[in-house]
Structure formats: structure tokens, C-alpha cells
């Protein structure tokens, strides 16, 4: 494989464009995702089936640019429910570009890294940020396994199931939101809760290499 394509968003891009930027960067870390991104040169759009939100993903030979709105250059427009990724999307232009449609589908559904790998990457990318604990303990309750990172002078523990840990640690959900919804249990101070949530938000918005 050659050099990885640079994946970036416009300076004032919406949160949606930034979230998908993070998704594509994660896909780019997997050999299967990287191969698709390397192979593709296209422009396509994702549009909300519930509201006006829309983004365009423009993949050229050396970079991937995410911007707001539906570009007239888009070969394919995928209408989807962003709040429910499992809902079946409507794809405009699929009949004209069946292979492209298939590859985009693969790109957007590259499997997530497992929680343990994600936890390692999360700590590596965020431990230097303000208000982070010096030790992070991640406990997967269904595997009954814990991993700890850093040293124990100020510790924060996150406990949850595989699924919730996977989305949390790659920046697809926020710790404070997951804790308030009861999906995640925590042991630590408010300072560290805000610090880890802030770090997750930075990952989510593509501001860190996670």
C-alpha cells in the first residue's frame, strides 16, 4: 500500500462532517478500509432523511475532504437516518454506479476496532490533555476483564459492555452522555469525567488522531 490519503474537513465544517471525518480516519486505520480509500476517486454525499443535514465526501488521489451540503459533483447521494445507522438508506444514483455504491457501502461499514485496542489508542491520543486522570482503568463487564493505563495517583474507572466501550473509546459517543443514560458506570471525580468527555469530544470531532 502507498502513503495514506490525508482525511480532513473544511475549516468551519459542521459537527456532522467532523464526525464522519473521524469515522473515515478509523476506517483508514484498518487494512480493508485503507484499501478502499486508496482505490476510490469519487465524490458522494450523505443526506439526512429526517432533516436538512448533509455532507459531501470528496475523495481524490491524495486526500479526502469533507464539507457541508450536497455537492453538484456528487455521483451518488445516500439518504440516511443519522440517528439510526441500522435503518436502510436510500441511494440516489446507485443504478448508474453499482460498483461505486458497493465500495462506499463497504467503506462506511468497516468493523470497529475491539474495545481493548480502542482503549490503548484512546489513552495514547488523550492522556496528555488537561483534566485527564493519571490512570485510566477500563473494565469490560461482559468479558470480566480490565485494562489499566498510566499510574495510579489519580485514577478513573470506566465499566461497561463491549459494545458501549467500543463506540465510546473511538469517539462515537461521549462518556458523560453514556454515564447519564446508564450505559456506562464510572468511578472518579467530576474533573476527570469532564476531562475524559472533552477528550472524547475532540476525537469525535476529528481534532485528535485516535
Amino acid at each position: 500500500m502507498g502513503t495514506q490519503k490525508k482525511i480532513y474537513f473544511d475549516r468551519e465544517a459542521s459537527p456532522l462532517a467532523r464526525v464522519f471525518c473521524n469515522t473515515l480516519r478509523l476506517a483508514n486505520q484498518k487494512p480493508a478500509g485503507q484499501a478502499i480509500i486508496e482505490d476510490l476517486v469519487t465524490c458522494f454525499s450523505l443526506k439526512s432523511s429526517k432533516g436538512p443535514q448533509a455532507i459531501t465526501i470528496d475523495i481524490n488521489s491524495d486526500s479526502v475532504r469533507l464539507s457541508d451540503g450536497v455537492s453538484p459533483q456528487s455521483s451518488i447521494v445516500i439518504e440516511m437516518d443519522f440517528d439510526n445507522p441500522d435503518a436502510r438508506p436510500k441511494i440516489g444514483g446507485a443504478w448508474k454506479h453499482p460498483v461505486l455504491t458497493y465500495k462506499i457501502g463497504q467503506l462506511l461499514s468497516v468493523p470497529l476496532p475491539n474495545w481493548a485496542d480502542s482503549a490503548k489508542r484512546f489513552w495514547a491520543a488523550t492522556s496528555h490533555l488537561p483534566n485527564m486522570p493519571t490512570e485510566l482503568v477500563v473494565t469490560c463487564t461482559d468479558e470480566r476483564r480490565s485494562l489499566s493505563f498510566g499510574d495510579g495517583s489519580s485514577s478513573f474507572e470506566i465499566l461497561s459492555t463491549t459494545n458501549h466501550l467500543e463506540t465510546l473509546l473511538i469517539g462515537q459517543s461521549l462518556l458523560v452522555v453514556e454515564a447519564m443514560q446508564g450505559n456506562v458506570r464510572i468511578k472518579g471525580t467530576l474533573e476527570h469525567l469532564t476531562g475524559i468527555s472533552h477528550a472524547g469530544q475532540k476525537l469525535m470531532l476529528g481534532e485528535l488522531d485516535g
Partner: protein
Amino acid sequence: MDEPTIEEWMDRHHVEIVRTHATTLEGAAVGKYLNRPKFLKSLPDGHNIADLALAMDITGSPHMSFWHDFRHGQFGDILMRPDIDSIVSDGTDPDLGHCLCDFTDVHGNDISICPRTLLKKIAGEIDELGYHVKAAFELEFFIFRNTFDQARRRQYKNLDPVTASTSNNIYLLRNAHKAKPFMDEVVKRLNWQRVSWESWSDEGGVGQVELSFSPTDPVKAADTIVRAKQLIYEVAVDLGMSVTFMASIGPGYGNGLHVHHSLQKKDGTSAFRENEEKTPLLKSWIAGITSTMAGATSLLCPTFNAYRRLTEFTSPPVTATWGEESKTAGLRVITRTDDLARIEHRLPSGDANPYLVLAAILGGGLAGARKNLTPPEESQFVGWGLPDDVPRLPNSIMGAAEALAEDTLLGETLGQDVIDYWINTRKLEWLSFHSECSDIEAKTSTQWEYNRYFELL
């Protein structure tokens, strides 16, 4: 005023209840009603209040994705320390007094992100340089004949403006006469509360009024706006009407919070004009404010809604420029006489926190003076409609936050911790809009903005 004197003052004014009053970062009024023994017992440190008071957004949601050291690890209290020199009697309620406060930690230490404390710090640093600031705000707001309940039921739309004309007339006495019963009550209460106002008039928007205040020291000038906004809201409630300081309620004129300021030397003479010339201090002061104007925009235009007001040819400036007597440049510099020598900053919007507005503007000037900066050439052109390659001020909440993040001068002057926390609050506002508003591509104020800002700022 010391503590025995405050008791005498309360006796003399028959004050049995004191309402303490401070602002959140965003400018919402917060405080408590205290009975006389509790208020006196709390002096000089003040009474407890949850640290949430300074760590919540405009909807009351705690700041849960960023942190400042004044907060407690498991939620806790801070103090509201009364500035007893600010106590006034209500005038309408015979038992009630009002007292403005600063937030401190439970040990009485200043909190750097308390808006009033921040402004005091900047004013103090200017004082140490040997100058005294005088500042005066012009507050714009819309008045409606509908109650707040009715306005809420109408989703803040199709309200009945108080003035007569439906066009964008300005200074019309017929419009002013329609607003006069409301404004009579406002100025009566301002006088009772010793808030020094100078004039009011019909403004450009339909149902809009501008109320101008007398020059005074910067903290008092900002206190005046904090008091006046609350008082105007209360008059509206008491008269069965409604008001809003929202920056933009629709196409056309929005609400500004223009601010004038001047510097005097210790002997009381102008520090901005000497021998019929602009002083070197004024030049470096202008340089500091113009070079920090892009970053300061975030503090001067804080809400998502504020950027809808920043359209060309509708009064606010859109460039970081200055010009003598220019109302279209970023700064209107007035130096025709020593007595009048001052700067008018026309960018702040009506929804801004006046303490932060003055802290940002004076902080910019102070940085310019300390570093002896050179100002850009005076703008000779109309400040609107300029070619596209002329740099504009940020035109979005995130653009402004990013400009502030890059502004090292304001970071040094106001404190990087203050700037970092503020930027996080703006990012939260931006995320809230994008995740909660169903009409993100709207070209005019959305329902989300009305619901969030109409009544609270």
C-alpha cells in the same frame, strides 16, 4: 461602605430583604433573595451558591465536557461576595434592596472566570499604568405588547411591537410616544435605583428602543447594564408586556450594545488627545483593539444568533478597522475636542455579557499600549460592501472561537484559562445548535434561537 454602615443604610432605607445579583458567563442574571439577618451574617464573604452557577449553559445544563479549577470534584459550592458599595433600594418594593456580587471560591479567593472579577482585574491594570477609564453603553431592545406567556405560546413570532410605524424609521417621535408609558416606568425605576441614564429614543427596528447611559468607571458601567436589563425585564412582566435583547429577531436591524470609552490621566485630562492631536497612547490603544478585534468577536457576539446581526449595511461593523467619526469602521474614533475624545465600539450585540465586552475591549487596548503597537492606516472608505479580498471579522460562532484561540494578546491579557474555558462554552453552543435545531440551514433566526435566547439573555 463598611459593615456597621451597611446596617445603618438598611435601617435608613427600610431594607429587610436583599437580592444578590451576579451574571453567568453568558450574562444570565443569577442570585438569591436573603433576609436581612442572613445577608448581614454572610458579610463580608457572601453566601453559598452551587458552583454550577458559573458552570452552566444558558439552558441550565452543567458544563460536563470541560473543566476549570474553581469547580469541585463532586459538585460543590462557591460564594457570591456582595459588593456592598453597589447596594441600592428597589424603589418599587419598599422592603427590597439589590446588591451586585462577585463569585469567589469558598475561601474567598477570586475566580478568574467570574465576569465581574475579570473586568475589575483589567480596569485595575489600566489604573496601575496611570490611567482611569470611563465607559458608557447604549442598550438596544425590542418591546412588545404581548406578555411573555403569550409570546411563548406564539413561539415568539408575529408579536405586536410597541411602536407605531411598521417601517425601519429611526428617532421617530410618534414611535417614541407609543413606547413612552413603558419607558416612563423604566426610567422611573432606573432613577430609584440610582442608575444614571442619559437618553432614550426610537431605534431602527420595528418596536426597538435605544437607552443610553452616563459615562462612569468600567465596572459600574457594566453593572448598569446588568441592572438595567433585569429592571427592563421586570417592567415588562409587571406591565403585561415583553422585551428581548436577542441580537437578531429576524431580518433587518438587530440589538446592539455599543460601548464608548475614554482614558483620563490621573489629573483628569484626556489621555487620548493633546495639543489637538491624537496621543501616542490613543494610537497604540487603537492598534491593540483592532489587532484583537477578530478574537474579541467571540466575547462581543457570543451566541449563535449574534452572527445573524452581522450583515453589511445594517449598522454593525464587519472589518477590524478604525476611522474618525466613522460609524461603519470597526472603531469609531472621536477626537474633535479633548472633552469628547473617546472610542466607540459598535460590534457588541445586545445578548453579550457587558463585563466580558468591556474586559475584551479594554484588554485589547491595554495590550496595544503595553506593546506600543502601531495601528493600521485610518480607513477612508465605507466599511461595508468592500471587495471580497478585504478581510472581514469572523461571521460565525465557531469562526470567532477559532480566531480567539489564535489570539495570543487576549490570552496574555485576559488569562489563557479564561479564554480556553470560554472557547469550550462556545463550542458547546455550536454543538447544541447542530444537534438540537431542526433547521440548521435557515437564513434567519430559528425557533431554537428564540427558545434559547428571547427571554433569558
